[in-house]
């Protein structure tokens, strides 16, 4: 490449483009940054304070806090809790939390995805608007409402469904039942949680589906595709990971749920993988249940359990958010 002679000598020095904000702006930026950092501060404080409270129990139990499945408070004669003799392990509740939340997600995903597909690609405008408003409203229902509805209305039905599952699929290990009691099982809790997270997964899936690039949709239709063939070829590949992210957000919500599970699940402190047996657990509702009559040491143990729940939901939610935002920004 040749260089023009008059340019070979020297380029003009770059001018500094000064963009130094005025004092008022610097103050403003500082304040806004402070506000922005608040979420970091709060999340950090939650971790620090829960860890501080739970420290002694965690230290005494060590790794057994995660792997142990006993919750035994031993008190001496003066009524002071003996930390060394007591046992605090959350394995049973961890298993229960995961079990209920997983059942909920398995039930909710197909329903939510079908619902989102219908709303995005099938529904007439009027029905779509009504349904979207209803689903938004349902997402704002307080969890105690789900708890009461689950207890009074859904539970009898869910028990009947559990019986059917047992009758026809009892040969599967996790549907095994030795006694004829189908009340307050992880399955029932899972069904209640599913109704809670269907609006969440539906609205995220709907948002992702509606971002499907129009030119691809039209290309599929122009090739003589039916609606379903178009969805399979264009929408599903585009939205798949977003739906997975939405499902994980639902999973996070289901894992952290307190009162809706408390009302419909029989809290039993044992590791139980069989979904129809009326014995299960959930970290959040266990904390609520034990909190009422807990002494100082047990409260420390509950704080440690809260810390575990906090970290667990934070991880699940973080992964979910990364997946959803990646799908959203993928664009064309």
């Amino acid at each position, binding site marked *: 490449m040749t260089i023009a002679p008059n340019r070979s000598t020297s380029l003009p020095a770059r001018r500094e483009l000064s963009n130094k904000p005025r004092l008022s702006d610097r103050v403003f930026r500082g304040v806004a940054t402070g506000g922005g950092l608040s*979420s970091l501060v709060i*999340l950090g404080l939650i971790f620090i*304070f829960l860890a501080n409270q739970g420290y002694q129990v965690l230290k005494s139990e060590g790794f057994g806090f995660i792997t142990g499945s006993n919750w035994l408070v031993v008190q001496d004669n003066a009524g002071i809790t003996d930390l060394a003799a007591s046992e605090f392990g959350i394995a049973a509740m961890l298993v229960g939390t995961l079990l209920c939340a997983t059942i909920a997600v398995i039930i909710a995903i197909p329903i939510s995805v079908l619902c989102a597909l219908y709303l995005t690609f099938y*529904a007439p405008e009027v029905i779509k608007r009504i349904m979207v408003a209803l689903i938004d409203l349902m997402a704002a229902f307080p969890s105690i*409402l789900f708890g009461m509805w689950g207890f009074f209305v859904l539970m009898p039905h869910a028990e009947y469904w559990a019986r059917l599952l047992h009758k026809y699929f009892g040969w599967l290990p996790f549907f095994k039942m030795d006694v004829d009691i189908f009340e307050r099982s992880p399955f029932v809790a899972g069904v209640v949680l599913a*109704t809670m997270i269907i609006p969440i997964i539906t609205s995220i899936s709907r948002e992702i589906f509606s971002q499907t690039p129009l030119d691809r949709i039209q290309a599929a239709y122009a090739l003589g595709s039916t609606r*379903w063939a178009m969805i399979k070829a264009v929408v599903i590949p585009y939205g798949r990971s977003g739906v997975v992210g939405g499902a994980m957000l639902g999973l996070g919500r289901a894992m952290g749920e307190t009162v809706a599970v408390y009302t419909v699940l029989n809290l039993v402190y044992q590791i139980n993988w069989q979904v129809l047996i009326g014995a299960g657990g959930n970290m959040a509702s266990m904390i609520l249940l034990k909190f009422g009559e807990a002494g100082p040491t047990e409260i420390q143990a509950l704080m440690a359990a809260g810390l575990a729940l906090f970290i667990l939901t934070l991880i699940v939610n973080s992964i979910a958010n990364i997946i959803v935002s990646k799908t959203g920004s993928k664009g064309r």
Partner: protein
Amino acid sequence: MTAKIPEVKAKVKPTKPWAPTTRERAVDIGAILLAILGTFIAVGLSELKGKLAYAGVFLLLIISINFIQNYLRSGIAAAKDSIASTFAVAGVLVTLLPIVSILYAIFERGKTGLKFNLFTSDMKLNGPNDPLNQGGLLHALVGSGIMVTIALLISLPIGILTAIYLTEIKGLLTRPIKFLVQSMSGVPSIVAGLFILSAIVFPITKTPSGLMGGFALAILMIPTIARTSEEVLLLIPEDLREAGVALGGTQWRTISQIVVPAAKSGLITAVILGVARVAGETAPLVLVSGGGDAVNLNPAAGPMGSFPFYIWKSFTFGTPESIARAWAGIFILLLLIFALFITARLLGGDRNKK
């Protein structure tokens, strides 16, 4: 160029030839009727029984009828399409089912407990098991109002500042903070309660109070307000900001006097949604608010009642009277949430129209 007078043509009416014809609709309705008939016959003749059997057999029949009909008319692709459509409609109906069931349950079970004295008295002298014309939820109404207001006073500035940071400042930390705000909205409500206990109640105040309830709710409210406000601020066109700066305004003046006022109704929507989100939070209030039975106007001292606590207490008490109380309480709570939602929608609709 000479102006030509257009010749008057017969007015052509717009049509939608792609809309389903009467015949196609008749075929669809016929298929549904046939499937219903088939369902009753199948369920009647076989061992199957129960609502689930009806639903299952009906779904199976309608799918087969549509499949065969579409296959004969247009081939395999259309037949598969008809299965997908049927499932999509089924998905919506299954989603709708709990919503309708919940709303019906609230209305049906809540109406017996709806008495005027609910709004005039508290539970100072009554237990949950007392007849429904005694006692009320005035204390819960007042307590929830105070706690939500406290939560709002804390989370409104923080939430909106966060949103302003994310949309206007765009610093190095924008992405991580956006991520943290999203993560924060997933914090389980009971953890918020435990946090207030461990950070304030145990080390400092030693006793639960309304203020603590407000703090716990604030933690749950901040991410909702921040995220909704962020979306609202993103909708403000960029040229408005450039115009402000080009006129010689500082960024602070541009944002405080142009951007935020332009987004006002949207920000109010954000606040309303935040309030609706926390108004029914139960678990943290059970831990930190103390849950008194008398009207308590002082958030700093003494237990304070709230809607969710009132409902919770009545529900767990477990007698018919107390459960009727709980349903009535949730009826009123949901009416309030409903009203907040409609207000937010109306404001949001306003914004879209402009």
